[in-house]
């Protein structure tokens, strides 16, 4: 299964994505510079974390105008799998590929730590290897991960089953104490209505090995790999 990782000026989790996909999951991966438009026919596009354009103005606001994003949008429109992690999630929201927006953490502080998320939808290509309700231990590292959408939008999200993951405690309870950043409804990850575009604030790219404190991120990668295999 072939992955493409987009690289914007200021991306900094591009290497982590490359490493986990190639060295941990054993899949081929191409790095695509943002000025390019050819994605090199991947099965899945990863928009990685970092600080594209320094996060200046608004997170993801400038990156979405990069030439490569037009190709990513076309790829998604044709049903291709696209996952945005952290800053990648922010970029996909700005680009209109995902609903909602990520605003500043409630504490106004950048937060780097392991959190727990509950898989609310195991039926997406990004979570198919998870049990419904499974709890994953996975780190966050962001200053703007506070998911917001208007009430109308939230209703739609819920109705369509687009809320894929929510922050929870170790046992899977979705509580306000377990919400690290003030996200509406503890939302940690959402997908589009067609379920082929997924955004997630926590980092499956940093949780692929026990040596790093958790291998739970592998569930996300395994899901993608197996659903791509199934589609072929």
């Amino acid at each position, binding site marked *: 299964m072939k992955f493409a990782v987009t690289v914007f*000026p*200021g*991306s*900094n*989790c591009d*290497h*982590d994505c490359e*490493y*986990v996909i190639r*060295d941990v999951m054993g899949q081929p991966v191409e790095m695509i*510079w943002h000025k390019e438009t050819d994605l090199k026919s991947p099965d899945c596009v990863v928009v990685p974390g*970092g*600080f594209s*354009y*320094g*996060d*200046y103005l608004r997170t993801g606001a400038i990156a979405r105008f990069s030439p490569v994003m037009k190709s990513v949008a076309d790829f998604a429109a044709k049903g291709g799998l696209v996952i945005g992690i952290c800053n990648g999630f922010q970029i996909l929201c700005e680009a209109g590929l995902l609903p909602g927006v990520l605003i500043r953490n409630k*504490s*106004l*502080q*950048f*937060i*780097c*730590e*392991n*959190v727990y998320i509950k898989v609310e939808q195991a039926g997406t290509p990004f979570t198919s290897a998870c049990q419904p309700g499974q709890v994953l231990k996975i*780190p966050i*590292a962001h*200053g703007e991960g506070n998911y917001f959408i208007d009430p109308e939008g939230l209703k739609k999200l819920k109705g369509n089953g687009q809320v894929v993951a929510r922050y929870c405690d170790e046992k899977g309870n979705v509580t306000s104490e377990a919400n*690290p950043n003030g996200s509406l409804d503890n939302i940690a990850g959402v997908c589009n209505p067609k379920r082929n575009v997924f955004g997630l604030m926590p*980092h499956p*790219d*940093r949780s*692929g090995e026990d*040596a*790093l*404190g958790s291998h739970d991120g592998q569930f996300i990668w395994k899901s993608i790999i197996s659903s791509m295999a199934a589609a072929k």
Partner: protein
Amino acid sequence: MTSSTHSAGSTSSPRASSGQVMDAEVTPQVIKEHGLKPDEYGRICEVLGRKPNITELGLYSVMWSEHCGYKHSRALLKTLPTQGPKVLQGPGENAGIMDIGEGWAVAFKVESHNHPSAIEPYQGAATGVGGILRDIFTMGARPIASLNSLRFGPLTDPTVQRLFAGVVRGIADYGNCMGIPTVAGEVVFDESYTENCLVNAMSVGLVRHEHIIKGRASGAGNPVIYIGATTGRDGIHGATFASTEITDESTEKRSAVQVADPFMEKLLMEATLELIHSGLLVGIQDMGAAGLTCSTCEMASRGGAGIEIDVAKVPQREKGMTPYEILLSESQERMLLVAKPGCEQKVHDVLAKWDLHAATIGFVTDTGRMVVKENGKVVADVPADSLAEAPVYHPAKSEPAILKKHREFDEASVPVPKDPGEILEKLISDPTIASKRWVYRQYDHMVRSNTLVRPGSDAAVLRVKGTPIGLAMTIDGLGSYCALDPYEGAKIVVAEAARNIACSGAEPIGMTDCLNFGSPEKPEVFYCFDRVIAGLGDACRAFQIPITGGNVSLYNENPSGAIDPTPIVGMIGLFADVSAAVTQWFKNDGDFIYLLGNIGDSIGGSRYLQVAHGKKTGRCPKLDLEPEHKLHQVLKAMADARLLQSAHDCSDGGFAVALAECCMTGGTHEAKTLGARVELPGQGRVDARLFGEAQSRVIVSCEAAASAQIEALAGKFGVPCAKIGQVGGGTLVIGGEINVPVTRLADLFFNRIEKLMASPFQNS
């Protein structure tokens, strides 16, 4: 600083007059305002064979300032040990480099940004991080980790809270945006730093041996290329403050504060590494303190060459800048490079990829002179070497009277507390001892997915992907010991850093240091400076740890006097196989607990004496170098044999605090607690045994099955080793003295700083 151990820092600024008027007359007053002494001016005239013009005077004033020229410290720094079989690059370049095997090398260095952070905490700290990162990637190394050492006044003071919040946020924002994990550090709160905070930043990078490059210019005719941010009037050494020509209106428009641009630096880093790794460059140097002046004359001087530049070609942010201003500007995020012949176009291609602008501003010559032109007209022409070689001074020294008083302090006058459990709670909640989670939670300490041991344990541990190799790193300082006994205190700083490395299971291989002191022109300060350097040198020689570079920050003065003499030590440890790494926390119920080293019987200089009795005095703990070295070796041997479940040294707060820390697994959002039941060894004062800070002690835990081997190894290395108890339960029990639920300790420990910082103002 071709010949000194330490390179440019940026704490104190000479007061220079503005270069508004290019042809301003060089009067005695102007010379004085430039911080140059009459005989220094005489030496300049001698070197030039004529009087300098105002621009040339500006060049000498910055290069011969304390922070670039190391006038007062150079002679002493030369006494430090800098050699070793692994040293690939010792002092004199932008960062030291050591071999770590498999063709890899580690580059590292620490630098101060005290003064800018005091004026503008956020930007000051951020630009400090930016500066030290440039020092690393300038050598061809990719930065893999940052560390920081911070000192402020007492945290109960709202002004201190704001300063602390700003500094931490500045460090966080810069490192996070760059995608370089900030993995370790230390924070101390003490009266001594109330008006003069210390912000020391360290960075560590990895480089293949064949990619190491230096800050040297050579090859007459090779182009000198400027890249990065445009040059503005920011940071021109206090010029704006000292100038009489500046009207109110222009002060309003001007700012000496440098604003950090981490995004620009990220581009600069990627582009620079690509240029170096593609073999397009002869040499490269960042523009830090003294900006363009320092980078040009140092590159020329190191390469035994000359350089000619035209300031009109320098990309400028403001209109009407004079050559003086362009040369002295300290605008951030700029680099100067010398391309190989025929590579100029390729250099421009790489830079275009990263949307960076480049300007060829001059070329290398074989004259040994630094020639500056403005639109072809010569505005400065001086021997490059003469700028890089500031005069050397040997200031007077005399022992501060207070040291004798400290030595004579009578410990018997201090009452032994009735409830040691209460004291332990007090110590655990002391902001200097309490968990720094509030700080490192704001730092991305995981990016690049190499961090195996995150902040919270004695040393951070990172892997080197594709190899079994790992690196341990720590940064430590002990101003309060050095204030009591500068020589012994300095030895202990080195020992503490090395012990932190050893506790993590690695071998300490190299060190960098930042020497933060008051004015060297005060004999009492210089006495301490001299003794501290002696202590650092003796400890490094005993442990066979070379010092590959560092930084000196002088003139750190409070209205009430100098800060405590504060040497900060950054240390790197090496794992041949990083799977041997150990953390400080107890792991399993039933594991055995050992104390390596002796319990001690003094409370002199301890945090306990300060926190519980309000006294910052007494005899500084003594450090015997031989047993300490043996301790490091036995720890590594135990880790190599995979015998240890945990290892943690006793430092601030002594035996009891160290035990408590072993019980509270750190990290964020995964705090776990595990109790322990131990006896209290030794005889004599209970408080001295519990909270005294005797050196060379480490608490380790192991599975019962490993205990025979632990004891055998300790015997082999001649390290005292006593089985003192077992891990388990929910309370920490120490002899008949202490019995506290660990959850209570954890609540105090992890939340103390968070609570103090809860005021909304710190975060807006």
